[in-house]
């Protein structure tokens, strides 16, 4: 497979190449009015779009990125031959894929937020910022452009913010876990790389970046093929697909469930909570430190993601059904991890809602959760596969019908097995009657074009011939 030294960073939206690590965000949902004014709007937004260019002069106060749903591209009057060339799951959209994704019952589209119930969402505008004021100022600037061009109406906006502890932004989420360890490395994407974040090599312990085509359209993927992409090639190249999901967290239910189970479990509450996800609350992987959190490991990039499950086939350290082991099984399925290299996604997003300390009373009705955004070259092969086979089903992980303990749509009937050994502090344990700790409140599939493609859309130059 050809390797490349560097990507054209100025042609790729910055959101694709890096997690900005900016603590505030607003995700704006637009309905485009009609093609001419919508193109004018995109043309005016173009100079504001943050590219993947390196920030040698430090982080900007705010960033802007732009993506479209398939109905959005229809509203922009892209040629039919282009519109029909998009992968079927993107043309259908997340709502119509509910049965495939297991988005039923409490997660069903009828229960989603209002913004998903009226005029269709055509575009996502992501603003990230260093301060709420920076986000607000950027939003005001964009809202003015929208008003001037008349290219869109704002259907709604979702604010997100990193959880602050002692006045400092953290990577905590509302259940109290530490998030943000899992993103893979890709060939050509400059990033502070750390062992455990790409793909496993044949020796079973060295890690290397994944093929660029697992993230970006127009490049060879792990099969050595170009990902399925729309025509013309120039529209697709340097773009990607984004899955947006608003995941409400039932923090009260989560705490109540743990409180009820913990006295029955010999390892204690903190350990049971860690068994759910595969990491202690501070992020220490159970695989590396099964008995207690170890900040020295959690904060060492050479160790915090550098592990495999080969020596823990029975799941006595990290349960086989623990969240991180399910969604990134590493070597757990054998074949040096090759069965999973085409199922990786890149995660973006931030929590939303007010963080509640452990001693603070909470209710499920309070608006808090996480905005989950996944970037991948193929929504069906990557995100949808992970969601369907590894979150909502357990067969690949030899967990039968058991769903992911944290993310699963359990409907009160879920089960999770904590494998154990003979030690009294690490006994086997079965969690049953699992409720939905997380509920889907809306989302969609977006196409996140390159800068060139955005300009072509703005100028009406997309030509599939």
């Amino acid at each position, binding site marked *: 497979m050809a390797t490349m030294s560097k990507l054209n960073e100025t042609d790729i939206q910055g959101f694709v190449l890096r997690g900005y690590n900016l603590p505030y965000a607003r995700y704006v949902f637009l309905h485009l009015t009609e093609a001419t004014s919508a193109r004018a709007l995109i043309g005016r937004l173009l100079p504001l779009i943050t590219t993947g260019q390196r920030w040698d002069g430090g982080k900007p106060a705010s960033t802007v990125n732009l993506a479209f749903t398939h109905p959005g591209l229809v509203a922009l009057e892209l040629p039919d031959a282009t519109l029909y060339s998009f992968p*079927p799951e993107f043309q259908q959209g997340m709502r119509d894929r509910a*049965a*495939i*994704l*297991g988005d*039923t*019952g409490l997660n069903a589209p009828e229960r989603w937020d209002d913004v998903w119930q009226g005029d269709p969402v055509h575009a996502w505008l992501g603003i990230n910022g260093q301060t709420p004021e920076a986000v607000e100022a950027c939003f005001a600037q964009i809202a003015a452009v929208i008003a001037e061009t008349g290219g869109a109406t704002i259907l709604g906006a979702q604010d997100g913010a990193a959880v602050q502890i002692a006045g400092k932004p953290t990577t905590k989420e509302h259940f109290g876990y530490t998030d943000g360890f899992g993103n893979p490395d890709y060939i050509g994407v400059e990033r502070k790389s750390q062992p455990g974040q790409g793909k496993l090599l044949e020796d079973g312990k060295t890690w290397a970046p994944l093929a660029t085509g697992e993230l970006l359209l127009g490049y060879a993927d792990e099969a050595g093929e170009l990902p399925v992409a729309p025509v013309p090639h120039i529209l697709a190249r340097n773009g990607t697909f984004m899955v947006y999901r608003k995941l409400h967290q039932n923090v009260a239910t989560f705490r109540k469930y743990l409180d009820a189970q913990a*006295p*029955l*479990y010999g390892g204690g509450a903190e350990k049971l909570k860690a068994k759910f996800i595969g990491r202690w609350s501070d992020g220490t992987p159970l695989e590396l430190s099964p008995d207690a959190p170890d900040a020295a490991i959690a904060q060492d990039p050479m160790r915090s993601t550098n592990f495999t499950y080969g020596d823990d086939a029975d799941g006595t350290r990290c349960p086989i059904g623990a969240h991180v082991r399910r969604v990134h099984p590493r070597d757990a399925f054998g074949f040096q991890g090759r069965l999973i290299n085409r199922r990786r996604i890149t995660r973006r997003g931030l929590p939303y809602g007010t963080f509640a300390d452990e001693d603070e009373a909470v209710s499920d009705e309070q608006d808090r959760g996480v905005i989950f955004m996944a970037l991948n070259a193929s929504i*069906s*092969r990557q995100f*949808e*596969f992970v969601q*369907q*086979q590894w979150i*909502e*089903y357990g067969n690949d992980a030899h967990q*039968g*019908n*058991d*769903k992911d303990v944290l993310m699963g749509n*359990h*409907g009160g*009937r*879920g*089960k999770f*097995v904590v494998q154990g050994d003979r030690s009294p502090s690490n006994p*086997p*344990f*079965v*969690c*049953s*009657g699992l409720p939905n700790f997380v509920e889907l409140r809306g989302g969609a599939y977006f196409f996140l074009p390159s800068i060139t493609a955005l300009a072509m859309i703005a100028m009406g130059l997309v030509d599939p011939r």
Partner: protein
Amino acid sequence: MPNQNGTVYGLTILSPIIDDERATPSHDLQIRHYLATLPTDEHSPFAQVPGTHLARLVVMDDVIYVGMPACEEHLNSKYLIFESNIDCPDGNVDTYLRGLAETVAKHLDAIWSHCVGYPGAGNVAAFVAYMKACQLTTTFFFAAVNDKSVTESLRALQTQKAVAEFIATHQGMPAAQLQAEFLKFAADVKAAPTPRPGSMEQMMLARREIKTGGHNE
């Protein structure tokens, strides 16, 4: 013995479908139509046949070469493919085939009567001979199960589910009480009737509501 995996046997049968241009709809479409009506759960006719782990029926029209340059080749016939994993510890498939003929003759006739030379399931000896004549001995077959019998597999699934439930409802119980309850539980599990083949999905704690069979490659 490439068709044998322990006590389980991979029985694969390839029957040429009658090519008759006067038949409307054609014989292959008539098979497809009938297969589409068959249930796939415990009400599947093959679930009634003793020793069936898995049975899959496919109509193969042709084999298409998709490489470059294009190359036109065709099979001599359309085929009905029957693939199965069956209990067959001694490697002699006669017992299973007789069981088929004796249990679901009506369905067999509805399907295989569209195939060349099919004698009908009424004549069991002729049926067994026909199926064996069409058998494909493989070097590699789809092994859907390990080498336990259908009854052993069903009881194992039943026991696994019961044990998980028992643990969930008895965790943390004082030892003496736990032992008493476990002895009763073990006796109950032993005495419980074996689930019917194909019925396990309904018995599972959380049924799969998810739609599968998409094009998730």
